[in-house]
């Protein structure tokens, strides 16, 4: 059988839909379908986005580490989809999906969806993968670390907003550091990134941070927008992690 064209296939479908074809056309449609060249979904673009997410380097790296049976992988993909819908201006659809996730899937899923919609999830996954490689964390430890980050996110994350000053970001970071968490995050998008850099430079030199926290940061450009994340992780926690391999 020759390779079917999309136009030809749709023409066959339209013809049959208009009642101008019978059993033979249905059989032909089935034969074309069986080639596996086409799929069908009312949300074809979203499906394509989800398929793209599965090829995202940060996602792939994280998946390799936690294992393909990790139950939150499916929600991480949905989180990436939500971010894409938000930046392409499809707010109603994004809100609809967000509601579905919040209502039906429990607290951790809601947190993944929330973090993903800020656009910072890919960087968190990147950070975790980097930690795994540098510090020989076991897959179990990494899953636990991710679960802990989800649970504590509202207390340990500083999103840099338009109205925030460098001083405010600095004070917020020091206030979190005083509580001695295993790690805390500062992240920014677009124009707020320069302010975030300046605040992070100041935080790194602060006596309350030096010797207690080590910084890991990453700059990225996603869909034409600057993304920045800095993770300050606790040295004390780092040395005594019970699940490190070494």
């Amino acid at each position, binding site marked *: 059988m020759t390779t079917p064209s*999309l136009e030809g296939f*749709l023409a066959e*479908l*339209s013809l*049959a*839909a*208009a009642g101008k074809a019978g059993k033979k056309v*249905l*059989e032909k*449609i*089935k034969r074309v*379908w*069986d*080639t*596996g*060249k*086409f*799929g*069908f*979904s*009312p*949300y*074809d*673009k*979203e*499906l*394509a986005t*989800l*398929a793209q*997410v*599965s090829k995202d380097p940060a996602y792939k790296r994280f*998946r390799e580490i936690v294992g*393909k049976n990790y139950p939150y*992988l*499916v*929600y991480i*993909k*949905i989180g990436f*989809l939500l971010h894409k819908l938000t930046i392409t201006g499809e707010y109603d659809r994004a809100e609809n*999906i967000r509601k*579905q*996730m919040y209502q039906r*899937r429990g607290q951790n899923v809601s947190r993944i969806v929330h973090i993903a919609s800020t656009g910072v999830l890919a960087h968190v996954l990147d950070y975790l993968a980097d930690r795994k490689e540098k510090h020989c964390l076991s897959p179990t430890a990494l899953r636990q670390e991710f679960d802990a980050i989800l649970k504590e996110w509202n207390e340990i994350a500083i999103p840099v907003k338009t109205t925030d000053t460098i001083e405010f970001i600095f004070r917020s970071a020091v206030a979190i550091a005083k509580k001695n968490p295993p790690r805390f995050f500062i992240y920014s998008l677009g124009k707020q990134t320069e302010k975030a850099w300046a605040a992070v430079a100041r935080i790194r030199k602060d006596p309350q941070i030096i010797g207690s926290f080590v910084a890991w940061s990453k700059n990225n450009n996603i869909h034409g927008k600057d993304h920045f994340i800095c993770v300050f992780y606790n040295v004390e926690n780092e040395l005594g992690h019970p699940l490190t391999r070494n």
Partner: protein
Amino acid sequence: MHQEVKFLSLKEPQKRVLLKALGYELDEEDYVVNAETGKRLLCKYTNRKISLQDASVLPGSTIVIGSSPYALAKYVEEYLED
């Protein structure tokens, strides 16, 4: 490796034809039913019945699933990830 697949967005009459060609019918409420048994189909990922409006069909198969983000993401996980 997985071959490149094109996902189509079809008009309602085209969907009806495609489902029919793949061995399905629609009941009086436009839910997808197995043409042989007459039983309503359930999405393998969500276990929910599938309406004409909600149906997605996986490439190269006759498997019909619902189109919730969860079902689509599970499909990607099962069939498109290495």
